[in-house]
C-alpha cells in the first residue's frame, strides 16, 4: 500500500484539511469495525505506540494504539491551529507537525511566499522530510490552500516549490480554493494570479475549487432539506455536507463548504485506500488526464450531491448520477463543461457499480460532449468497492476541460483592473524578494495558459488530425 502526505497551509487549507481528517476517520471507522490498523488506514495514518519514545509503532495488522495523521500543518496565524490543538482532532497531530507564527501574512502573497518562505524554509523542509520518512512508499503530496489570501497562496506555493526540489519524483496534487468575485480581500486577484503561475509551473495536477460554487451547492442543499413540502423525499443529512458521525460535534460556519472539498479528497484517494475491481492509482490520474504539462487543471464534480431519497428504481438513480456529474450545478467551479471541449475525463466510482453500468453511461453521454479530435475516447475509469458513508454509490468526475478558461479570464480581468491603477502594488514590492516583474510574468503565464486552452477549444483546431500515416513500401 502506498502512503501519501497532506500539507495544509493557511486558514482555509487547515480548515479543509481538518474536515478531511475527520471524515476520513469516519469513513474508516465505518468499514473497519475491529480496531485493527489495516493497510487502508496506513495510507494516510500512522499507528503510533505512545509507550515507545522513538515514535515508531504498530505495523499493519496490529491493533490501533494511537493514530497520527500523515500531515504537516502550516499557518502564519495562531487561531486555526490552536483550535485544532484544543479540538477533538488534537490527538491526530503532534505539536511537531505544526508550524505557525502569530503575525499573519496580511493577505499579501509576497509576505507569505518570500518573507515567511525564507524564514521557515528549513523548518518546513524538516517537517516534510520527517513525514516522508514515516512513509513506506511515498506516492503523493496533497497540498491544500486557498488562492486569495496571503499565507495559503504565498507560502502554499512556496511549499510546492520545495516539494519539487526535494522530492522531484513524488506526485504533487494541489487542491486550490479560488476566491469568489465578491471576495472581501481586495488584493485577492493579485494573490491568486501570482499563485497560479506557481501552480502552472510546479504542480503535477491542480483541482481548482471555487468558493462561489461551494456556497451555491450548500445553500441549494439546505434549501432542499429545509423546505417543508419536500421534507418527505429528501434525506435530512446529506453526508456530503454534514459531518455527522465525525468526532467534531458542533459545526462551524464554513464546515458545510469545507466538507464538500474534503469529500472530493476522500473520493480521489478512495481507490488508493480501498480495494476495487478497477483500481486507479494516484499516478494514473495525471498520466491519463494531463496531455500537456501546463494544462493540468481538473474540474471536479461530485454526485450525488442533492440526495433525493425516493427517485424511483435504482438503475434510474444510478444513471441520473452519471448525468448529474456533467451538469453545471454539480461542478465545484462555476463552469459548464458540456459547452466546452474535453481534453480528457476520468470517472471515479465508489460502491456497487458494474462495468456494464459504466460502459452504458459513457455510451449514453458521449454524444452530448465534445472531445478534442485526437482524444475522442478520452475516458479513464475506476471503481472502488467501498462507497462513502451513507451512500450506496458515488461518482467523482474529473475533467480536463477548456471551460476553466472562463474562470481564469475572469480572474485575469479582476487582476488587470487593479493592476492598471497600480493599486496596492507598493505593499508587494516593498517585500524583500518581490519585484514588479513578478506581476507581469505571472500575468503572462496566466495569459499563456488561457491562450493554450483557447486554441484547443476552437473547433477549427483539428490540427494534424488524420495526419498521413507512415507508409510502407511493398
Amino acid at each position, binding site marked *: 500500500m502506498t502512503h501519501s502526505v497532506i500539507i495544509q497551509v493557511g486558514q482555509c487549507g487547515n480548515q479543509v484539511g481538518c474536515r478531511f481528517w475527520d471524515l476520513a476517520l469516519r469513513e474508516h471507522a465505518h468499514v473497519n469495525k475491529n480496531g485493527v490498523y489495516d493497510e487502508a488506514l496506513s495510507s494516510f495514518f500512522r499507528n503510533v505506540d505512545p509507550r515507545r519514545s522513538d515514535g515508531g509503532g504498530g505495523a499493519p495488522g496490529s491493533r490501533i494504539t494511537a493514530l497520527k495523521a500523515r500531515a504537516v500543518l502550516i499557518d502564519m496565524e495562531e487561531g486555526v491551529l490552536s483550535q485544532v490543538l484544543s479540538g477533538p482532532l488534537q490527538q491526530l497531530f503532534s505539536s511537531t507537525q505544526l508550524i505557525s507564527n502569530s503575525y499573519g501574512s496580511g493577505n499579501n502573497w509576497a509576505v507569505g511566499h518570500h518573507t515567511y518562505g525564507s524564514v521557515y524554509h528549513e523548518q518546513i523542509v524538516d517537517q516534510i522530510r520527517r513525514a516522508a520518512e514515516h512513509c513506506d512508499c511515498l506516492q503523493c503530496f496533497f497540498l491544500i490552500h486557498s488562492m486569495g489570501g496571503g499565507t495559503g497562496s504565498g507560502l502554499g506555493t512556496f511549499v510546492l516549490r520545495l516539494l519539487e526540489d526535494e522530492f522531484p519524483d513524488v506526485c504533487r496534487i494541489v487542491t486550490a480554493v479560488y476566491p469568489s468575485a465578491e471576495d472581501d480581500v481586495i488584493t485577492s486577484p493579485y494573490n491568486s494570479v501570482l499563485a497560479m503561475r506557481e501552480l502552472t509551473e510546479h504542480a503535477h495536477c491542480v483541482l481548482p475549487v471555487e468558493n462561489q460554487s461551494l456556497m451555491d451547492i450548500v445553500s441549494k442543499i439546505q434549501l432542499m432539506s429545509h423546505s417543508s413540502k419536500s421534507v418527505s423525499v429528501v434525506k435530512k443529512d446529506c453526508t456530503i455536507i454534514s459531518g455527522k458521525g465525525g468526532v467534531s460535534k458542533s459545526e462551524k460556519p464554513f464546515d458545510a463548504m469545507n466538507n464538500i472539498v474534503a469529500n472530493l479528497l476522500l473520493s480521489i484517494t478512495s481507490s488508493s485506500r480501498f480495494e476495487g475491481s478497477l483500481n486507479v492509482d494516484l499516478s494514473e490520474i495525471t498520466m491519463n488526464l494531463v496531455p500537456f504539462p501546463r494544462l493540468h487543471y481538473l474540474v471536479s464534480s461530485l454526485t450525488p450531491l442533492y440526495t433525493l431519497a425516493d427517485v424511483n428504481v435504482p438503475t434510474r438513480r444510478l444513471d441520473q448520477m452519471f448525468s448529474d456529474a456533467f451538469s453545471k450545478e454539480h461542478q465545484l467551479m462555476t463552469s459548464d463543461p458540456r459547452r466546452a471541449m474535453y481534453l480528457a475525463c476520468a470517472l471515479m466510482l465508489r460502491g456497487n457499480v458494474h462495468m456494464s453500468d459504466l460502459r452504458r453511461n459513457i455510451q449514453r453521454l458521449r454524444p452530448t460532449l465534445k472531445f478534442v479530435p485526437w*482524444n475522442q475516447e*478520452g*475516458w479513464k475509469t475506476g471503481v472502488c468497492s467501498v462507497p462513502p458513508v451513507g451512500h450506496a454509490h458515488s461518482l467523482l468526475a474529473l475533467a480536463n476541460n477548456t471551460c476553466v478558461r472562463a474562470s481564469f479570464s475572469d480572474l485575469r480581468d479582476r487582476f488587470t483592473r487593479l493592476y492598471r491603477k497600480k493599486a496596492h502594488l507598493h505593499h508587494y514590492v516593498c517585500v524583500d524578494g518581490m519585484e514588479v516583474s513578478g506581476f507581469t510574468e505571472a500575468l503572462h503565464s496566466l495569459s499563456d495558459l488561457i491562450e493554450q486552452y483557447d486554441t484547443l477549444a476552437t473547433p477549427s483546431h483539428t490540427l494534424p488530425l488524420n495526419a498521413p500515416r507512415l507508409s510502407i513500401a511493398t
Partner: protein
Amino acid sequence: MSVVTVQLGQCGNQIGPEVLSTVYEDSTGAHARTYKECSYERFFREDAEGALVARAVLIDMEPKVIAQTIAKASGSGKWRYGEKSHFCQKQGSGNNWANGYYVHGPQHKDVVEDLVRREVERCDRLAGIFAMMSVAGGTGSGVGTYVTQCLRDTYPHSFILNHLTWPYGTGEVIVQNYNSVLTLSRLYTLSDALVVHENDTVHKICSQLMNIKHISVSDLNKVIAHQLGSMLQPAYTTDSPAHYSRNPIGEMLSSLVCHPEYKLLSMLNIPHMAQTSLEYSAYTWPGLLKHLRQMLIANARMEEGIDWKVCVPSNRAEGGRNPHVGFNRSLSNLLILRGKEVSSADGGAFKESGLYVPWLPADGTFHTWHSPVPFSGYEKLATLISNNQSLLNPLDNIVQKAWNMFASRAYIHQYTKFGISEDDFLESFTMLEQILSSYTHL
C-alpha cells in the same frame, strides 16, 4: 512436458488463476480421467504433502491483486500458488509503459528471472513459457514486455507464447493506444506468437451468448479462460495421434506460425452458452463446423450475427490487393475438437485451398486436434485457433488513434521523462505499419 505460466500485471494476475481453475476443474471432471495426469503435469506440480501447486509466477507492481489471487486459489482447497513464486511492489506503474519498461523492469530483473528460473527447473521438461498480460496498462504492458525480453535472452530455444488482452475501444485507460503500440511492436520480435483476446469481443459474447446482465471483469476473464483452456488441455494431435500430445505449445506454433512476419493468433469457440443451458443443448458436429467455418471466412467473432453471404473467392487473383468483400483470409488454422462422437466430425471444409494464401503448401495450412473428452461440461466443443486477417481492423484502429495523439504530441512528455524518445515511438509505429501491411496483402 510442462508449461510455466507467467502472470503479469492486474489483468494477467486475474486471468491466470481463471485459466488454471478451468484446467483443474476440467481435468477432475468425471470424463477427464484419461488426460488428468497429462494435464496436471502440464500446469501443476506436487508439494511434499501431495497438494497441487501451479507452475506459475505472479508479477505485479502493486500488491492488492496478487494478494487476492493467491488467497482465492488457496481458499479453493483444490490447488494453490507456490509460496515464494510471486513478486510485487507497492506502487504500480501508473498506466505508463515507459515507467514499467525502463524503470520497474530493470529494477527487478534479477528477482523476476530467479522466480521463473526456479519454476522452470522444477519441470522435467519445459514445453514452453506462457506469459499473460494486457497491453493497455503500465505493468502488464511495460514490465511484461521487459520480462518477455529477459526470458527470450535466458531461454533462447524455448517457446514463449504471449497471451494479450486488448482493451475496450474506449473507457479504460486514455493512453492505452500508446501502451498497446509500444508493447505490440516489441513483443512481435520477442515472442513466438501472440494470442489475442479483445475485451470488446468478449464483452459481446458475455452479453449475447451467455446472457449476463451486469457484466463484470471477472465474467470477461472466465470466457477468456474457457477459450484458453480448450486450447491448452491435452488432445490427440497430428504428431501424436495415439497418445495425448506432450508438446502442446510447440506443436501449435509449428502448425500456425510458419513465417516470423505473421504471429497474431485469434480464437473462435463454438458453442458458447450459459452454464445453466448446457444440459438443454443439442448440437451436431456438421452444424457446429459449418457455423465455425462461416465465422472464420466472414470474420464473425461469435455464432450470432454471421454474414452468410460472404464466400471464399473462386478466383485467386481476386484476393490479395483487392480483397473479396468481407472475406477473411487465413494463413493457417488449427481446429481442436472435443467431446462426444468426435471421430465422426469432419473438418474437411477447412482444407479448401481458397481459404489460404497461395504460397503455402496445402498440407501446412490446416491441422486438427481432437479429444473424446467433453471439455468443461460442453458435450461438443470446437475451438479454432487461427492466424488470419481478423485482427487487422482492431490493430489498425489502435495505430490510428495512437498516431492521431502522437501527431499532437499529446501525453508524450509523460513518457519521455522515463527515458523513451520520440524516435522510439516512430520506430514502434513503423513496425506496426509493417505488420498491418503484411496482413493486408495476404
